[in-house]
């Protein structure tokens, strides 16, 4: 039952005394991550907007990774996946992740192909 809570986050680095304390701890962490995201979005450091990794700006990679970090803590601590049986947790998490990765891969590749078709001038789309 979910009555027993696992009270450790960050792989046991931080251990809370009660579930309520853990909730506030996670809130502080999530707010911190959001603040960093917003600050980066407003400042837009040149070093991050002009360097690329696999065709995407470093800044955007940071945003996406921080989003996944937030998603992890919302799912694990707020939706208490941390307290569920391992098999249930894996079913819930890995099935969508697999399908979504496939969808992202196939659609973004297709979109990039269409972009190149437009760009190479076979179609006039600006007149």
């Amino acid at each position: 039952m979910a009555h027993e809570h696992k009270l450790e986050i960050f792989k046991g680095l931080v251990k809370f005394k009660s579930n309520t304390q853990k909730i506030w701890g996670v809130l502080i962490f999530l707010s911190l991550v959001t603040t960093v995201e917003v600050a980066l979005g407003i400042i837009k450091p040149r070093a991050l907007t002009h360097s690329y990794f696999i065709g995407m700006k470093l800044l955007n990679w940071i945003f996406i990774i921080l989003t996944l970090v937030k998603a992890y803590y919302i799912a694990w601590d707020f939706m208490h996946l941390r307290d569920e049986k391992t098999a249930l947790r894996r079913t819930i998490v890995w099935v969508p992740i697999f399908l979504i990765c496939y969808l992202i891969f196939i659609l973004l590749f297709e979109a990039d192909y269409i972009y190149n078709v437009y760009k190479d001038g076979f179609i006039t789309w600006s007149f």
Partner: protein
Amino acid sequence: MDATVNTGTEDSVWGGGNRPLGASYGKMMMWFFIMSDALTFSGFLVAYGFSRFKFIELWPIADEVFTHFPFMHGVDAPMYYVAFMTFVLIMSSVTMVLAVDAGHKMKQKSVILYMFLTIIGGAIFVGSQAWEWATFIKGDHGAVETNSGRILQFVNAETGKRASLAEFAKTLPEERVKHEASEGIWFKSEGYKTSFSLNEVVEGFKATPNILIRTEQLNEEGEKTVLDRKASLAKILEANQVVEGANLIHNEYGHRLFADFFFFITGFHGFHVFSGVVINVIIFFNVIIGTYERRGHYEMVEKVGLYWHFVDLVWVFVFTFFYLV
């Protein structure tokens, strides 16, 4: 050949008594729903990514679209309001977990308080989203659209800032009436009447030398290209209508697909928040009249809690892909 094997567990299995993977029937079904809904939202967001990658060099910059903050007129405040909205939603998620936690301890009074705070948080979020939509629909500076549907915006050459149509458009002695479907070809009518006619904008533009045209094209710096005066004067001739604000067909901020996806995805998410608030209200009253106290457990609060957190989870992704990336 009918063999009857009685293990004595049939009643509990088919009566919903057994708990696969240690989760009750209701909780399991909530997870099923959340997974399918997660795939729906991913479909939408990936479709947004598809259109964005297709028009990667033309896509509007979110910072230039969402620049308003309530009660602070004319102040350029990109992202602050969405950051506030995000914080409100995370906060209401926290009060929801606290309600679930209080439910485990059978503290009815605390559950009532925390559920109430969650509902307030949800209401603030939906209200903020409505304001965000209204601001987006109303528009900011105005623009003109070319024959091929591209958007041309205007920039003040001296300050480098965006110029509104009202700053340079001429008022010509011409009658401008809204075109109704009843007067003319039956399928043609205007959704709204713009403050200036195309002629007034073009004439005003020609008469004001310090106004330049900004196209949708992103340059190497990741900024929109500003044409020089000569190129601007040539470009303005391609304009065929004035656009103010955004709707599903025209969008003064840039590519119309941006507005379409904005309305569709944030609308679908807002609808989820709204239904979440409604479900929370129902459970809130159930808690007040003591339904779960009599039932002996507050699992229903946990189940709506899962839905509510899911809505928060989706917003985290919408926030990233619409406002940050």
